[in-house]
């Protein structure tokens, strides 16, 4: 079958669109499909962030440039750097900056990584008897439970997920 668009190349993609309650199916070749913004890398998993991050890197910009200028005057009391410094350099001044600018950074981290919640290895500061910084407080318990819930859902372990959800409700 020839491509409905260029009528030159073989159609390899069927694009079904719903417009005004009627279904239209277009048969497209790879090039025309790409022009219409259809991803053709069929077999591979997709992440909505890939292209966006690629564009950031190719544009030569830093992650800092993604933060809106409205918070420029915010200053980290620990190291003295401002959010403006971060916007210019793409580098934070110290570990406390993550707390000083947490609203802006949470938003940025979500845009960069698709999430701001660390679910990887937990870390306990040395000499705190195996319990990390405030690991017992309800907030961090909640975060840990949410991370576990996410893993349970991804692993399709719904029984565990239901139990975790109940525990989260109690804490919230």
């Amino acid at each position, binding site marked *: 079958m020839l491509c409905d668009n260029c009528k030159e190349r073989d159609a390899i993609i069927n694009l079904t669109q719903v417009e005004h309650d009627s279904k239209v199916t277009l048969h497209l070749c790879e090039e025309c499909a790409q022009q219409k913004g259809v991803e053709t890398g069929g077999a591979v998993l997709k992440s909505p962030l890939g292209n966006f991050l690629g564009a950031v890197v190719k544009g030569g910009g830093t992650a800092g440039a993604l933060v809106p200028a409205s918070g420029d005057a915010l200053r980290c009391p620990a190291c003295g*750097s401002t959010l403006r410094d971060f916007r210019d350099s793409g580098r934070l001044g110290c*570990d406390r900056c993550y707390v000083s600018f947490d609203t802006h950074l949470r938003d940025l981290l979500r845009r960069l990584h698709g999430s701001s919640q660390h679910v990887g290895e937990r870390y306990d500061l040395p000499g705190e008897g195996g319990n990390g910084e405030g*690991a017992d407080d309800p907030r961090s318990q909640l975060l840990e439970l949410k991370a576990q819930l996410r893993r349970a859902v991804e692993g399709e372990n719904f029984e565990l997920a239901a139990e975790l959800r109940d525990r989260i409700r109690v804490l919230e």
Partner: protein
Amino acid sequence: MDLSLLPDGGMRWLDASGPKSTIVLSTRIRLARNVRGIPFSQRAKDADRIAVLARVSDAAVSSEHLGSAVAFHLDQMDRPERQVLHERHLVSKELAGLERESRPRPGAALLVQDQVGVMVNEEDHLRLHGMWSGFDLEDAYAEVEAVDAELGRLVPFAFHQEFGYLTSCPTNAGTGLRASVLIHLPGLVLTKEINKVLQGLSQVGLTFRGLYGEGSEVVGNFFQLSNQTTLGKTEDELIDHLGKIVRQVVEYEEQARDVLLRTAPEEVEDKTWRAYGLLKHARRLSFEETMNLLSGVRLGVGLKLLPGPGVYTLNKLLIYTQPAHLAAMDGRSTGDRELPTVRAAFVRRLLEAESS
């Protein structure tokens, strides 16, 4: 500095003993960590840097994994020596102070034991890294993670319950993990399929770079593939995902090589023998030409069109024909006009030694 202190020059990965090592040269794991309460590199004063190095050195001495590490203080080394470390992928250009006329800053150091190194006072206070032969993400991660776990018990790392490990640039926050493979894809380049594959990578949250990592150009059909995001997924998830995609890319490369063999067997055979012939007989070789010829020979060896040389020899040539290595070997400067002649002689010598 005495590089002979490093067994295998810190490059055991060259031995081509790992899985799929004709296509995947090496697997690299990097973890970014910072010391709690000390300003990040952007803001750190010299005293802060020196304090970071002191803490890391003290911890290393009393640790199992870095107890007999060799330490390189980059700010006390000459430029050619620093360049040698960079050419071995042991330090970044930034840490080695090789960008334009810059110098390494006080406290810039590298600790190496076995296959794991720690860059101190890079963009982050600590950059733990390990390079493994072939395609071996799990082993490489397990080893670097063990060093991280031990150091983390001795030095307080900056960690946040929500954001994870805190890094100077938020693109590394969370796990601080960058896993990458150095992969040779001449089949996909010759069949012009490479752009499709590289575009596909960005859609699955991966990125590619040249031979020397960030900002470097692709030479000799060598690509570094790595994860783009570091937060919101566990270390295992990030590694599994990269592994899955790399396996797919290796498969595409193998298919592309099959296509080449089926559709243009004589051309491919001719190309690989010509590359081998030039390497064996040329009298002057630029670094870039050498990389491209090595790529042709590597393809020929992978397709069993050439009887040799071994992959180990090809890997050694990749490292030792770089400017700082040749210059050091021959007592010259890296800008010496005779370097191409020295390079050609060195390549001939190594290839002759192997075939005799």
